[in-house]
């Protein structure tokens, strides 16, 4: 990558890049295939969280017992990506670095404040999720760097979570979607709410105003509806062939209500079990 700079492109799972090549939408002179590189395909539990190698296949993460137990929202989000044949090749790092605004994984990373371990020129640096995603299909990775690992924090066993999205068909790109995680304290009040949206801005976005409105509150339909209504002033989604801006804005609010309601319900269920 150092030698070829912007003439070269990294090939991970190829489920986004190869369609672009086949359609002649991008024409890199050099492809650097990471599939032969060892040490990038693993899932490890550490005190910092789950460390997942960038080249770990999405289907492997989705089926991992440790991910399902410690960070189930990640497995849940991956189920929404394309189809199984896509997820068998598609990698967790590839999706994050591609940074498609309609993709699920960047929203999960933002919601959980995941850390990105970036490798380049004999050096490693850690980047927070909110500094990783810069713009439409753009991250803070430099041309001579690759993503090595992503560290996803472990969820509390009592945490509730949900991933909701609208797509034309199962497996299609999401028109809009949301990742929600909540927990309840001993009195049943909301702690640590996390809401991240995708498909509604040039990058996935944290809905911090919605989170703020819920902290320390008793969860209920009205609270969730009022909190989600704050998205109206926060979002200015793009309109395209699949949905208008107004539709996306409305869908984001409806999906946020659904996801938070589901997450709170799951919290109650998991606390009882």
């Amino acid at each position: 990558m150092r030698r070829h700079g912007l003439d070269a492109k990294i090939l991970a799972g190829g489920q986004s890049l190869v369609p672009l090549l086949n359609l002649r939408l991008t024409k890199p002179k050099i492809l650097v295939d990471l599939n032969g590189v060892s040490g990038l395909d693993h899932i490890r539990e550490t005190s910092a969280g789950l460390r997942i190698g960038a080249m770990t296949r999405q289907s492997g993460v989705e089926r991992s017992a440790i991910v399902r137990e410690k960070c189930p929202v990640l497995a849940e989000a991956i189920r929404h990506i394309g189809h199984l044949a896509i997820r068998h090749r598609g990698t967790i790092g590839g999706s994050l670095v591609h940074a498609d605004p309609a993709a699920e994984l960047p929203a999960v990373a933002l919601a959980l404040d995941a850390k990105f371990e970036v490798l380049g020129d004999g050096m490693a640096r850690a980047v927070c999720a909110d500094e990783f995603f810069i713009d439409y299909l753009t991250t803070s990775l430099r041309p001579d760097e690759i993503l090595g690992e992503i560290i996803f924090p472990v969820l509390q066993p009592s945490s509730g979570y949900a991933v909701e999205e609208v797509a034309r068909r199962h497996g299609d790109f999401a028109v809009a979607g949301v990742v929600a995680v909540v927990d309840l304290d001993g009195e049943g009040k909301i702690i640590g709410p996390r809401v991240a949206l995708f498909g509604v801005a040039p990058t996935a976005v944290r809905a911090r105003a919605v989170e703020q409105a819920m902290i320390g509150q008793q969860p209920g339909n009205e609270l969730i509806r009022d909190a989600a209504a704050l998205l109206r002033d926060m979002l200015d989604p793009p309109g395209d062939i699949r949905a208008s801006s107004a539709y996306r804005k409305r869908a984001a609010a409806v999906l946020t209500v659904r996801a938070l309601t589901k997450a709170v319900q799951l919290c109650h269920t998991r606390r009882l079990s």
Partner: protein
Amino acid sequence: MTTHCAIEMTVNDKRYTGLVEPRLSLADFLRDHLGLTGTHVGCEQGICGSCTILLNGETVRSCLLFAVQAHGATIVTIEGLAAKAKSGDRLHPIQQGFLETVGFQCGFCTPGFLMTTYEFLQENPSPSEEEIRERLTGNLCRCTGYQNIVAAVQWAAERLRAR
């Protein structure tokens, strides 16, 4: 100047070698170099599922892989499916199911559906109709309206459970 790469892989229990440009897709290698034209190339963007094959036991889109990436791999294409039937059977129960229920019309998408179904029924031998429909969303058929394809998968699942 384009250099060629020597590759070898096992396809349908047979070893093949080839000398290919790095840019050649696996689907084109199977079709044009090995003559295994049962793998169909529809959209070339991973959407339609016609080119689905098994790479080391897992379904993948062969249009989104380069042949060089399959170096050393074990592949099953539609041509190898019948060999996985019980000895004496000319067709695999999944193939037979698509015949029995008329799960195809023009047949272009059929190889992909069969390979997807093969993986699916190994994981889930008794799927519900909803589970079948969900799994088949990754394969497009423009003729049948899917009803008979779902029936074919149910027919095959029943036959495979019985054996």
